[in-house]
């Protein structure tokens, strides 16, 4: 940006700053120096995801009917059940995918937003590494949804055993999608902009004294 250039978001071609808002001549993407409204979009998606986290964990994600006996199952309930059967490995995988990863992602994104708004621009390399992990790992929290999809398709045996999906699963899918979109709409370059201006400020202060 300082050199009077902007980068195409999709094909990474460089164009003069005067092309802001126009379309890339190589790939046709809309050009912006920084992603427009990155902070507001990220905040909105994070808040939506946090609200959806409640119904996702409190409402049942499926209903198990076995020999006329009905039993709702929540995400945490499923983890505890796996653990009580001694399947700790798989219980941990499900716990990680459905609780730890969504919470960790929200926390990671909040740290990035705080870094941007409060100017915590130390340890930038670690922050970037954390953001890349948050970005990459996000899709794996869809695991529980696909488990429900598989169980619902397989256990359709009428009176003997029947599993049906419940609205908690929809809320959980909403959490996953919102956090993925939030990571996509965040612009890490904004933190670097702040990092650079703070560096020049301290340089000026040193020059004054």
């Amino acid at each position, binding site marked *: 940006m300082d050199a009077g250039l902007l980068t195409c978001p999709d094909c990474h071609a*460089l164009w003069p700053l005067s092309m802001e808002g126009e379309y890339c001549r*190589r790939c046709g993407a809309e050009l912006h120096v920084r992603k427009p409204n990155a902070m507001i979009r990220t905040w909105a998606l994070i808040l939506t995801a946090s609200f959806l986290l409640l119904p996702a964990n409190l409402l049942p994600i499926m209903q198990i009917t076995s020999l006329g006996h009905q039993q709702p199952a929540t995400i945490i309930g499923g983890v505890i059940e796996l653990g009580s059967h001694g399947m700790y490995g798989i219980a941990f995988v499900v716990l990680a995918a459905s609780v730890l990863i969504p919470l960790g992602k929200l926390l990671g994104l909040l740290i990035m937003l705080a870094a941007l708004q409060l100017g915590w621009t130390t340890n930038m390399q670690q922050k970037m590494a954390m953001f890349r992990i948050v970005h990459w790992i996000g899709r794996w929290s*869809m695991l529980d949804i696909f488990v429900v999809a598989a169980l619902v398709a397989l256990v359709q045996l009428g009176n003997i055993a029947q599993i049906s999906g419940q609205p908690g699963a929809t809320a959980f899918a909403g959490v996953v999608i919102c956090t993925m979109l939030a990571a996509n709409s965040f612009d890490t370059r904004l933190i670097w902009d702040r990092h650079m201006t703070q560096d020049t400020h301290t340089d000026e202060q040193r020059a004054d004294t």
Partner: protein
Amino acid sequence: MTPEQAELIACHECDLLLQRPIILDSQAARCPRCGSTLISARHNSIERSLALSCAGLILILPAVSYPLLTLELMGNAQSQTIFTSAMALFSDGLWFLALLVLLFAMIVPACKLLLLFWVSLALHLSIKLPGMPFAMRSYQHLDEWGMLEVYLLGTLVSIIKLSSMATLLPGIGLLCLGGLIIVTTLSSSMLDHDLFWHQIGKKQHE
């Protein structure tokens, strides 16, 4: 782009402007400031992408249409394919979830393979096909929304959950799905975005 701009490259994660590094086959250049991958060269990227997308397009039909698992309990049998798992959610009234499963486990992976096939075919034959920049952009944006491997893990977890109450038989679809996941993962890692855009850009100006 002017020639001097083509010599430069900006990090898309921290916006540091650098001289475009010259890298050899199967090397990658990282941003010295933030550590993101700037460009990564892949040996025969176009040919490999073409071959892998062909293989994927062959595998995707059996992977989505043959049963992944069959459950047997007291003389009853029930099979699962990606499509029936979406339909089962739909019949439970969860149409949004059904749509997501269809999208992430069928439509997006199929579109990704078709788009990659289209672009790499055009670049391999060095002909200009319509919609190449659009196809490449769509591929990049769809990349993270194809979730075949997550779906496979979900199916494996459901095997473990059900193994105590019923007999589960793996189907031919499970094998095809495994193969398809290997092919799509390889095609993502073999794709040299920088090279593809460079070649597409050249075709645009012919």
